[in-house]
């Protein structure tokens, strides 16, 4: 029982920390993408194309391989290459281009005319990002974060395979090496429960935010 609590906690810790960092770096990247795209407010087609290609390349490297590639970086950042804390580095790095892309899509939901209205009110681009672009896109951004966290849960299970700890690690150790189906299935159920609760709360927040925008005409 104890090891489930231990592993569950490791998973939660890994997933939430790496989600946090992936959004911290991914959201600004998404904003840069939306501003510099050819039809954006600060069109920089060259920069946009470079970022676009880099993101596409990073997204096409399978997680397991990237994790091995990033080991040295983990050693620099957290002092070691294996273990739960060390796993946060590749988890976050893999998620950053994904978050950037998904935030870009979310920010695209904001109508160009609304941004124009903000500019016509005398807003700077930086003010516009904070006061219009991000607030208006918030429901879509919350949805993006939900998808990201679920993705990272999946990756974190895989990280167990190379000593990352967490529920995935537990499932592999007991399920694969020791052939203990009960512990395997408990791990699986716990992971499913985690994914579903993230989904549930993400959807809840998103819907609450969207309600303002779609209230029926009185």
């Amino acid at each position, binding site marked *: 029982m104890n090891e489930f609590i231990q592993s569950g906690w490791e998973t939660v810790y890994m997933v939430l920390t790496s989600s946090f960092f992936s959004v911290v770096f991914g959201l600004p990247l998404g904003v840069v993408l939306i501003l510099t795209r050819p039809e954006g407010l600060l069109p920089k087609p060259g920069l946009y194309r470079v970022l676009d290609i880099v993101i596409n390349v990073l997204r096409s490297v399978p997680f397991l391989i990237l994790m091995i590639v990033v080991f040295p970086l983990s050693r620099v950042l957290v002092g070691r290459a294996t273990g739960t804390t060390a796993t946060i580095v590749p988890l976050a790095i893999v998620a950053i281009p994904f978050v950037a892309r998904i935030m870009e899509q979310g920010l695209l939901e904001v109508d160009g*005319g609304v941004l124009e209205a903000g500019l016509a009110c*005398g807003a700077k681009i930086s003010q516009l990002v904070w006061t219009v672009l991000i607030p208006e896109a918030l429901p879509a951004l919350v949805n993006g974060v939900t998808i990201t966290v679920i993705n990272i849960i999946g990756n974190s299970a895989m990280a167990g395979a190379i000593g990352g700890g967490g529920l995935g690690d537990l499932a592999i150790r007991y399920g694969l090496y020791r052939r203990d189906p009960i512990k395997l299935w408990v791990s699986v159920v716990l992971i499913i429960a985690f994914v579903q609760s993230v989904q549930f709360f993400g959807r809840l927040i998103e819907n609450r935010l969207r309600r303002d925008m779609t209230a029926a005409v*009185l």
Partner: protein
Amino acid sequence: MCILRVEQLKKSFVLDKTVVHAVDGVSFSVGTGEVFGLIGLSGAGKSTLVRCLNLLERPDSGEVWFDGLNLVEQEECVLREKRRQIGLIFQHFNLFMRKTVWENVAYPLRIAGKQKKEFSARVDELLDYIGLSSHARSYPAELSGGQKQRVAIARALALNPRLLLSDESTSALDPVNTELVLSLLRQVVDDLGISIVLITHQMEVAKALCDRIAVMENGRIIEENTVEELFLRPQKPMTRHMVRGFDEDIPLERLTDIASAPVYRLGFRPQSVKRPLISDISRRFDIDVNILAGNINALVGGDVGYLIVSFEGSAQTVQGAIDALRGEGVEVFRLDQTNGLNGRTATGTADSSPACTETAANTALPQVVPASAGE
């Protein structure tokens, strides 16, 4: 005193590898407290033009003089300052959907770096002015189209601008809400003395509000005049169509087919619009007057009317009748569908300018796009 002066403004786009001259050498000026209308069909370049006026769109060439500065030459930071003195309202309102009505109106004040306690009274005052104080905490999605546009107007007025740009601001509204928004704009002009550049494709909207109107076609201003003169003496075929209203059944050029005699457009000034001039000349000159179309328009400066008629009688009596009408201050043009083969008419002086002749270009008139469906 002129608040806005535009000189030779040009803006073109590349669309599907062809260059579109959306604004093609436009010049005009707007006086303080004046409502200046820019009217034209969809695609005439009106919306591009309005975006060039506050430099949301950078023109290719030309000058935009506002408040003693040529905005085209200004740095972005100066432009932001100037934009605060130029309100902008849109066809689709463009309210911030996740901000309340109160926050929407407060936005320009907040962005200008003011503290909430400084501007909160101002926001309340604006909401009171547009009659939506009770909706301060509502979100735009809970409002009707007309209410949304009123909120947008309050937002545009928040920083006490000297000029208001209105880009098809009533086009997405039903007639009742259009009326409400127009009367609010009228009230704004009367109370605050600000100038408005009103962009629209609806002549009913322009005539209800404007002092002067410029007609745009293919990125150019083809005709500009006071509203009254424009209704009395529309020079270009497009203007005549605009003045007449596109919703009437028979195209203008077909009226010349229907009648067996030459067709004239009579423009009546406010002082002559109420008098029975037609039956008077019919009796005096013993001619038959066939009335093909007509209307009276209520303008800011008074009522003006027009009739499309044909006169049946000898050339001499018809000319006599026309002279008599002119003597009463009625504007008389001969309408001719034969592509201006002769600018002059059979009666010699009835029409002196080729520009007054209906040209075949009429028949190539683009399909009229009806006002967008309301909310």
